[in-house]
């Protein structure tokens, strides 16, 4: 039996307290009025913006002169006031977005692991049963993680933030494209769908954990067989709900834009981060003297998955990017134009972190058997996929007003603390070795 060490408890609680304080501060310091927002931007930015603005206004003046109509001036005035309102919304959204991005990212670790776990169960894999309890520990975070997201979604639909522009009736009134999607994109239906996904995933996690524990002390393999059936069923349920979840919770922040492979893309991201988390926690537990039957063969297999799914993620990312870039259709390509212009560094930096690093570091077979190599690459992959989620949400919610500062760091800190606390407490609740699993012998003897 694993016992949560005091250090872990203190560490996770500290992270949570720091994160909560930081988030509280960023909510408190977000601007309340347009004037405050303008002031904040004027303070924090250099005069580059003003130069650009004056250039633009000169150009518009030149056009105005050629038309010499007084109506144009009025329009311009209206335009700049709506720009200020945008600015206010962006700045007000920032703490919310930071909270949402971190909540999504840590929930994805757990959901990706749950999918991986279900695949191991459904395929009756022989190498992985020794790691089942680690995976079950990570998926324990699914319930709190998904409930937090549900709460954020409910708060959004109560108009407490502007994460989802399509929830604003005034925006919808002036937007023909969103009007056409109202049948799907409306708050009650969104919440109902979210409850449906969350209930389904957590039900599988509950039932599978129950059978897994029951199998430890049972004389036949009936629990194992039931687990197999539930897992196969869950995978079918998961791939549909995961895809819809990615449209609802992520893609709809840009309600004009759509991509048909977005669900797969999000899945690849959560899958590789989930597998990486399994590897990191396994190596941590091994370093503390637990899981003595897990050896470098198992780490090697996790490393292969990290390598393979990183490449798979890149394949999907690129497939999505290249078609839209090549076709250059205005309503599609704006998605990438905002990212390349305003988010150049995180957008392209993420490719380096998520593709180049894992590709080069994990290509060699021997490197996948070295623990510190897996840990180092794993940390890079996790950072890269946080940035991936960041790039999915931020451009739509905070636009060019993004910055990696107190809200983002405290968001990560809070959810990392909660994640560590929940996961390690769950690991301590059951023996770390599923001794009754019929495939445990195969897993022990496993040589890659």
């Amino acid at each position, binding site marked *: 039996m694993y016992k949560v060490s005091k250090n872990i408890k203190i560490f996770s609680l500290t992270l949570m307290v720091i994160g909560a304080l930081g988030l509280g501060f960023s909510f408190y310091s977000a601007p309340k009025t347009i004037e405050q927002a303008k002031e904040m931007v004027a303070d924090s930015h250099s005069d580059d913006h003003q130069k650009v603005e004056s250039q633009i206004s000169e150009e518009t003046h030149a056009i105005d002169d050629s038309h010499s109509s007084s109506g144009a001036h009025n329009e311009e005035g209206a335009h700049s006031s709506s720009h200020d309102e945008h600015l206010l919304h962006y700045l007000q959204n920032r703490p919310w977005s930071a909270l949402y991005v971190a909540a999504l990212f840590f929930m994805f670790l757990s959901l990706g692991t749950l999918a991986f776990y279900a695949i191991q169960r459904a395929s009756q894999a022989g190498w992985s049963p020794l790691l089942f309890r680690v995976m079950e520990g990570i998926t324990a975070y699914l319930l709190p993680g998904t409930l937090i997201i549900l709460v954020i979604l409910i708060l959004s639909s109560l108009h407490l933030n502007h994460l989802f522009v399509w929830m604003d009736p005034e925006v919808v009134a002036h937007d023909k494209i969103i009007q056409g999607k109202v049948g799907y994109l409306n708050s009650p239906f969104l919440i109902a769908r979210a409850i449906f996904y969350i209930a389904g995933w957590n039900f599988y996690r509950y039932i599978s954990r129950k059978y897994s524990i029951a199998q430890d002390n049972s004389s036949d393999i009936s629990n194992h067989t039931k687990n197999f059936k539930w897992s196969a069923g869950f995978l079918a349920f998961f791939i549909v709900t995961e895809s819809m979840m990615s449209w609802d919770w992520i893609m709809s922040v840009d309600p004009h834009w759509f991509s048909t492979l977005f669900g797969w893309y999000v899945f690849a991201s959560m899958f590789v981060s989930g597998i990486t988390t399994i590897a990191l926690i396994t190596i941590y537990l091994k370093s503390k003297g637990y899981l003595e039957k897990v050896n470098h063969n198992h780490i090697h297999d996790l490393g292969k998955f990290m390598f393979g799914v990183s490449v798979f993620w890149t394949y999907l990312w*690129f497939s999505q990017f*290249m078609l839209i870039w090549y076709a*250059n259709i205005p309503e599609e390509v704006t998605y990438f134009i905002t990212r390349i212009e305003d988010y150049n560094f995180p957008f392209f930096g993420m490719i380096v972190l998520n593709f180049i690093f894992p590709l080069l570091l994990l290509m060699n*077979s021997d490197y996948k058997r070295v623990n510190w190599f897996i840990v180092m690459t794993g940390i890079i992959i996790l950072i890269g996929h946080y940035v991936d989620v960041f790039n999915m949400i931020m451009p739509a919610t905070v636009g060019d007003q993004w910055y990696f500062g107190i809200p983002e760091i405290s968001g990560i800190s809070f959810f990392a603390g909660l994640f560590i606390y929940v996961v390690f407490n769950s690991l301590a609740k059951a023996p770390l070795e599923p001794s009754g699993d019929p495939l445990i012998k195969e897993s022990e003897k496993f*040589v890659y």
Partner: protein
Amino acid sequence: MADKILHAVYDDDDKLMDAVKDLRSSNFSIDEVYTPFPVHGLDKALGLKPTRLAILSFIYGCIGFCFAIFMMNYIMIVDWPQNIGGKPSFSFIENLPSFVPIMFELTVFFAAHLMVITFYLRSKLWPFKEAENPMPSTTDDKFLIEIKFNGDGKALKAAVKKTDVLEVKIIDNKESN
């Protein structure tokens, strides 16, 4: 040079593996094993060195990658500048996304083909080469261990007989004459 060859035939890959381990642990050196399919772990049991083909494959892939960059740059940018996707920038880096699939394909193409050619050269294989296996049924369901030896080989025969062997044959080594 050894003047005699012993052929030990097995009908199961597990029996073969056990025999290989037994013979090697009693210090007989096995010259060759013929199997109808790749037996998992046999290379380790035989004490073969790990293949260096993987390193070559990486190098070949890099060559293909560089060749693709050179080729696309020459064809699409230098020799006959192309308007790609309605973006007539005529710059390699700005049109990079449309070249990535070709870079990928040529990396795989070079790595795969050059690796096969290397493997052929290294194993002295070529098209229409006559098969060297001493017993045709090793391409069907039999496993064969080949050991070359000198003298009467009593100890060797006894050791082979101790394993779960189907058939033992001793023939003259034609190459040594």
